[in-house]
């Protein structure tokens, strides 16, 4: 091997020395000795197969991200629909929501084909935002319907096929992150309720938010975990609802209802402006 390289260098120098001296730039290798072609070829062959494998991986990741975005935007629409409950009967909202849910679940089924085996954890980061957004939507609907927190088991049902086997795993983290986002929606919903004068409902939501928060308070969340940040927001949402409920109780006895509603809705608007960053 050693001698071989020396020979090759000789070969190159005989051919290239003139160029080198004239241009001041040295081109060694590449088209050197013909015996070495196999070594370059070997490198090129293995890099070609690297390229194919890496391209395959990136294509798949992009496919997943695309569906993930679609699911996220569809889920947001579900949430907007659900918020109209303050102006619309529950029944018509549930009807509207059910067809949308089926469409979203179909998208999850489609993407699950790219998330099998060890690929689940490989691409989980790309699909997780969609799962969280969907959980946020269905947990909000669940609350409007039954006044309860959707259980992890009930979430899992949407990710099971006709034979009852899970086509996509929902991790505990996905669930916790989705429910953490739910609290933001509930805050808005509470403010909307106050806006239309439904005070009892607002106070119920406040209690429900406290219950959820005590659940999260049990968890020892690792530093720099994304859940940490969401819990901060959750805490702020709760405080906003608590403040609004406080305003309700303390001033409710002093003013006529219409006058009071005006004050609170002004208050509510300022909350909504603040919370819109959450989008």
């Amino acid at each position, binding site marked *: *091997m*050693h001698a071989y*390289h*020396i020979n*090759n*260098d*000789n070969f*190159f*120098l*005989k051919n290239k*020395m003139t160029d*080198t*001296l004239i241009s001041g*730039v*040295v081109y*060694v*290798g*590449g088209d*050197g000795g013909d015996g070495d072609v196999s*070594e*370059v070829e*070997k*490198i*090129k062959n*293995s*890099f*070609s*197969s*690297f*390229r194919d*494998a*890496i*391209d*395959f*991986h*990136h294509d*798949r990741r992009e496919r997943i991200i695309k569906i993930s975005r679609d699911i996220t935007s569809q889920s947001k629409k579900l949430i907007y629909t659900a918020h109209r409950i303050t102006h619309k009967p529950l029944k018509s909202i549930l009807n509207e929501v059910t067809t949308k849910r089926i469409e979203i679940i179909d998208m999850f089924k489609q993407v699950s084909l790219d998330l099998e*085996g*060890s*690929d*689940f*954890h*490989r691409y*989980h980061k790309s699909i997780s935002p969609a799962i969280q957004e969907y959980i946020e939507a269905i947990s909000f609907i669940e609350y409007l319907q039954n006044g309860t*927190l959707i*259980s*992890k088991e009930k979430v899992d049902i949407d990710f099971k096929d006709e034979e009852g086997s899970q086509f996509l795993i929902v991790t*505990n983290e996905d669930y*916790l992150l989705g429910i953490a986002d739910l609290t933001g929606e509930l805050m808005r919903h509470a403010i909307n309720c106050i806006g239309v004068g439904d005070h009892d409902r607002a106070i119920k939501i406040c*209690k429900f938010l406290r*219950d*959820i928060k*005590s*659940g*999260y308070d*049990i*968890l*020892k*969340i*690792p530093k720099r975990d994304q859940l940490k940040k969401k819990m901060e927001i959750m805490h702020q949402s709760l405080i906003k609802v608590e403040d609004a409920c406080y305003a309700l109780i303390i001033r409710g006895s002093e003013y006529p209802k219409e006058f009071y509603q005006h004050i609170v809705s002004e208050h509510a608007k300022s909350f909504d402006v603040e919370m819109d960053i959450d989008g």
Partner: protein
Amino acid sequence: MSMDLSFFESVDSAMEAETGRKEEILRIVREYDKTCRNLIAVLNRVHSVHSEEVPIIAQSVIDRIREVKQHLENLSQIVPYQQYYRYNDLWTRTVQSSLFIASFAFYLSTERLITTNEIESLFGVKINLQNDLQDFHISIEECLHGYVTLTSELSRLAINSVTAGDYDRPLKISKFVKELYSGFQLLNLRNDLLRKRFDGIKYNIKKIEEVVYDISLRKLSSSSKSDTVNFTGGEGDV
């Protein structure tokens, strides 16, 4: 209390178990990292010794790759089936470093690029060439990171081998690194860290070219001496 908190309690214990596993992995990675640092320290000596000693040093490092193999074996046992990607961030830098060590030592003893097959047999771990491995493995990206580091270390060696009186090595390094670079040029890299590091290879090549230029200009390499005989008709025959 109107809500059942048992779910959160069970999640909390699951999270605790997860933290425990991560700590255990990190403990193995720390040992693995220590081995890598030791091997790099050994390899550093090639920058200051005579060229005859280089293959001996390289071989001693290749022999010690079995320590790396053991660490990888330990990792592969702790990672559950199909959960490689859940934890691979914890060890990827160390794996990259050990791949650099292997490719550098291998180059110094054979003067060619270590192949994926050779990595697999040295490390006792498969490389995920088909995107289909379910268990612990080495990724292609990790190999590529190792190769990029190799080009930068070889540019350093090109300079130092001149200082140590070996004028032939820079020529061989130049040829080799360019071949390796032509391989990298076949890849469709995204805007990630690998892309950034790939962009750095050309500076390593430039550095090596400058060394080769200096040597060629002064007719210092053994091949240029013998070549000079042919080229200038005896002038260099001293």
